[in-house]
């Protein structure tokens, strides 16, 4: 930022070449594609269409709000797991892996009303959508599913993805800035904070105000962030022990903890951001 000599819109411009806001899965998913300033090849739009289809299919299969979705029918016991689409079995296997990796702090089988993979699906679908976008002509791509973000490549030549972490105590604030190479997920924040359930008690609640996880796969990062929000700082070492994953927790009073290798951007730790925003 504050790039030295001013100039017209050039290769440093941050606006994506394709920007789409897709209402799906009960929220909005932002898709940004960077092509390095070249005209956008038609093939990129074909991949964008595939990415959108991935998101809408995930919505149709996994929605617990759509009464006739396969997952809704599975939850009501109307179909067996074997009768559901392969996507459902894939996601539940990934959920089981995440449950084991988090010592049960992420547990879709402990949700009220039967198995509920919702906490995994949004990130999983966004990751699949991103994977569908990547290809020739794309120098960078990002899928932001309501604050859970998967990215690939780079938004500008050599530049990292810089993703702010929302302040759990303020609707509009930020609390940190991370450099992200693959994905980042945050759970338990101001805007969506009331939906997390502690699998050990069955009650809604979190031990930290918000929990953020970075790592190679957004579905898993999403699940880990949920576990970290519900379980609190005792889950941090579990997250840090998983290859490629790092975690950050923020308390409502602004205190925070992070795994040693959490990828804060330069000047992006909570302390530095707080100083900056205080007028420093």
């Amino acid at each position, binding site marked *: 930022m504050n790039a030295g000599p001013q100039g017209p819109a050039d290769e440093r411009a941050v606006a994506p070449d394709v920007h789409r806001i897709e209402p799906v899965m*009960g929220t909005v998913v932002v898709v940004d594609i960077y092509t390095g300033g070249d005209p956008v090849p038609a093939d990129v739009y074909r991949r964008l269409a595939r990415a959108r289809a991935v998101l809408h299919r995930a919505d149709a299969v996994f929605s617990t709000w759509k009464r006739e979705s396969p997952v809704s029918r599975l939850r009501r016991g109307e179909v067996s797991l074997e009768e559901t689409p392969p996507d459902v079995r894939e996601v539940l296997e990934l959920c089981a892996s995440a449950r084991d990796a988090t010592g049960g702090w992420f547990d879709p089988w402990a949700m009220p009303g039967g198995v509920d993979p919702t906490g995994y699906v949004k990130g999983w679908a966004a990751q699949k959508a991103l994977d569908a976008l990547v290809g020739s002509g794309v120098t960078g791509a990002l899928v932001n599913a309501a604050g859970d973000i998967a990215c690939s490549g780079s938004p500008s030549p050599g530049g990292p993805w810089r993703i702010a972490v929302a302040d*759990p105590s303020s609707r509009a604030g930020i609390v940190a800035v991370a450099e992200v190479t693959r994905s*980042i997920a945050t759970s338990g924040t101001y805007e969506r904070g009331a939906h997390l359930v502690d699998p050990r008690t069955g009650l809604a609640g979190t031990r930290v105000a918000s929990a953020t996880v970075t790592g190679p796969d957004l579905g898993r990062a999403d699940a880990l962030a949920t576990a970290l929000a519900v379980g609190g700082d005792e889950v941090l070492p579990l997250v840090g022990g998983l290859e490629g994953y790092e975690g950050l927790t923020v308390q409502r009073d602004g205190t925070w903890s992070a795994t040693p290798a959490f990828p804060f951007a330069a000047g992006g730790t909570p302390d530095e951001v707080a100083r900056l925003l205080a007028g420093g």
Partner: protein
Amino acid sequence: MRRTPIVLAATAAGLAGVLGFHTKPAKVAVGVSPAGTTGAAATGGTAAGSSTGSGATRAPAPATTAPARSSSAGRRSATGTRSATGSVVNYNYGLMSVKVTASGTKITSVTIATLDDGGNSLSQSIDQQSIPLLEQQAVRAQSASIQGVSGASYTSAGFVQSLQFALSKLGIK
């Protein structure tokens, strides 16, 4: 209970995903608002049940769409101060666009250029709370150099998107 009806509105809106949407087949499209806030306001102030879904009985969202790129080119004055207005974006409580003024590459002010929240009183109260904060933080953190906000479902994301378009017009990274 620390949650206010405003928080409930956001939660309920986020869960009300079963509504039908349509989008425009344009390169850049702004979709229909995920849900009007009116229904959420009408559900009252209790947070009970929000763990899995107080949004089940919601009215359909108004079918609002807007052109995405309101392309006004960046303007440069004789003093070196420039301004540009970003695209109109959906920010969950309506549609808004952001105007940025910069001196050189330094952001000097960020304001809301257009705001259409349908006259909803709940969303207006949210606007009054959140938008000044967003403006303040964008200027102080020069947050244009971020590509997203993790954990910010709606408002901040929409703001940042419009901000990015405005800054791009000004050639500011």
